[in-house]
């Protein structure tokens, strides 16, 4: 056997994982798309611009119905899958196109090796997402999303209170009704 053949025969084929890491397409054993792992936009806290699933009036009715269902079960807010799905659908109407912004920005990082932290901004220079090796993806709400969150919560909480306390349930032994007009510090 010639010396050059001997060398080649003893070089192990590179592990696929190692190739991915060297190419910057894999990090911490998770596949990267264009330099990052793709964000999972099916998650509750990952909103991106979507067409409204229903009219504003229908949304309002759906939120009230959800609140009634949750009140009947004795649960409130994020512990309800129906609440999470509906809130995500309601908020996404006002969301920026995170999917598009991230995909476009990520292309510029392709093959650039390990990236420890990136801040993604929209055209208005507002932070809309972070990617870090520590936490993966986190989606930062815009002012429009915050306003929509506040609207959703106001409708839900009012309907929940009406349904829950309307059935004679009490909190700390005192009946509560909606439409509060006074605030008492305890």
């Amino acid at each position, binding site marked *: 056997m010639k010396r050059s053949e001997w060398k080649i025969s003893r070089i192990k084929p590179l592990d696929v994982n190692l190739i991915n890491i060297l190419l910057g397409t894999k990090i911490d054993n998770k596949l990267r798309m264009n330099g990052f792992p793709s964000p999972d936009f099916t998650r509750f*806290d990952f909103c991106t611009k979507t067409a409204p699933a229903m009219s504003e009036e229908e949304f309002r009715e759906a939120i009230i119905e959800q609140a009634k269902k949750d009140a009947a079960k004795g649960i409130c807010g*994020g512990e309800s899958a129906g609440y999470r799905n509906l809130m995500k659908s309601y908020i996404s109407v006002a969301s920026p196109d995170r999917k598009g912004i991230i995909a476009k920005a990520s292309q510029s990082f392709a093959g650039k090796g390990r990236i420890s932290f990136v801040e993604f901004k929209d055209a208005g220079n507002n932070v809309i997402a972070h990617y870090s090796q*520590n936490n993966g993806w986190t989606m930062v*709400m815009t002012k429009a999303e915050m306003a929509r969150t506040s609207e959703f919560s106001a409708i839900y*909480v009012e309907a929940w209170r009406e349904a829950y306390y309307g059935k004679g349930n009490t909190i*700390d032994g005192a009946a509560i009704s909606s439409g509060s007009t006074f*605030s008492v510090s305890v």
Partner: protein
Amino acid sequence: MKAKRLISLLLVMVVVFFMTTTAFAASSSKTFTSSSGTIGSMSLYLDPGESGSSSIATINVSGLPADAVITKVVADCNTMSYSGAILSNRLYITTSNISGWTSAPWGSGNKTEISAGLIGTLANGTYQLYYTGTNVSSLSPGYKTYKNIKLTVYYNY
């Protein structure tokens, strides 16, 4: 006599109106402290001149009235260990009742108040926090860990 009757009737109407529309909302606050382990800490290691985000700390907020809504949240991060020169920039927070993160500039005395994005949302739930920072040294790496974070939730119910 008629005038007296009219005034009485008006008074009754006013009383009835307020009895049917007035309700009382109470305000209160409660402080929750994160566990001392990794899950309750925000840790950040940075090379010279780099910026980044810390690990996420988780705090469970429970025992408040089910319909309690947030008026503001204050995070007190005065228990820390560090080396080097990491400057804390912003604190990010989310709860299991909202579909995204909100933030506020790092507060003086390591106490940061956040209301934007949280006000009016349900108070009970799982809260998560991280901070962004910059290593202002151009020579040495640095780390900073905040633990035993005290989270005070102000709420109405």
